[in-house]
């Protein structure tokens, strides 16, 4: 039976008999796929994680703590390289608190 047919049958079963369909558990093997926001990119090969600076509500791309000053850059929520969802991901940091970083090599 096609998925469309299965859905119609399940809907009929619910409306006629009150039987709620059970969700089929997905295979869920894709642990490598996370729902974390994507990292942001500097000029060159380095990438960092977006953060939101509380003091000026600016989005920045943060990288190694020791170099954050020189590498932070203001971003804009509409900047596709800096996720506007950052405030929900890491809120209220300051530039000195940026410790997570990674390099794309």
């Amino acid at each position, binding site marked *: 039976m*096609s*998925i*469309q047919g*299965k*859905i119609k049958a*399940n*809907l009929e079963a*619910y*409306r006629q008999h*009150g039987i*709620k*369909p*059970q*969700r*089929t*558990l*997905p*295979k*869920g*093997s*894709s642990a*490598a*796929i996370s*729902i*974390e*926001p*994507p*990292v*942001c*990119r500097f000029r060159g090969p380095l*990438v960092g994680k977006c953060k939101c600076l509380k003091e000026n509500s600016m989005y920045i791309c943060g990288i190694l703590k020791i170099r954050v000053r020189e590498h932070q850059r203001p971003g804009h*929520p*509409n*900047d*596709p*390289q800096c*996720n*506007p*969802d950052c405030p*929900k*991901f890491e809120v209220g940091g300051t530039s000195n608190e940026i410790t997570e970083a990674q390099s*794309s090599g």
Partner: protein
Amino acid sequence: MIKNAIRKLLLADSSVTKKLATYSFTSDGTKAPAIFTIPVIPEDATYPAVILSSIGGADCGTRGQRGVGYGDAQAGFSGDYAKKLSVQNLVCDGITGGYNLSDLTGDDGTYTDCEIMENCSGKIFTGCTDLTGCHAEENFTTCSLMESCTMQSDEYSSSYGLFDCSNVSNMTIVHTISGCSDLYNCNVTAHSTTPYSYIVNCTGMESCSISGNHKGFAGCSDLTDCTADSIITTSSDYTGIGFYDCDDLTGCTSSNNADVGFYQCNTLTTCSATNNTNCGYLGCTGISSDCVDSGNGGSNCDEVPEE
């Protein structure tokens, strides 16, 4: 629980009332309670012979009144025909356990464990069943039997989307679909500035698609006639791939993606990979000879076996 309440009502010798739903309102007076109306019953009504006939609680007055903390909807036995409860201008904070709800509006409303909903809008729907034309500002979670529902498309958030739902038809959103099963004609398009959505860990999908986002299908299985197109690549891992770690694909198409069409997928039949930057198929097993591999770049790619 709702069904049991209705059975008791139908078996009752006389009119009885039973709480079917709880409606919560803001108490700060900034929002008015809902306006409840009961439309004229159609001659050919087929829905359950139960009517939400009165509203308990202190008061559920009209828009502009203040101070209602909550109200209970009571169900009454209504004879041979049913009537539906229609609530206009919903400004409740939330409805739990509602039944036969239609035409509710209000961006801030939440719905939990409601059944048979038509043209209702709110912020979050959780555990609801049989939804038609409903609209969520943020997400649908653990809902089932959803037809032609919608979501807002102006804002992107990773917490917005369709999560752990089942039996979903005809829905197009710019947000992520995760952990869902049995989806037909469900499509993820790209948000205008933040195309970070994808379809992940779903099973049983037919005629579904994703385009223009950073990722495509990931960790999905039992896919028929599904399409991933124009998936772009970014600095994040696993971007630019149409189908990643997916199993049992039939008639699926992956094209114009910035990396690989099908990556580490298993059991592919009548699938097509065209114009992908780095391989049509890579690290896949069970590629059928009727699959198409055309116009793809890359090297050391998997080859489609000859017939």
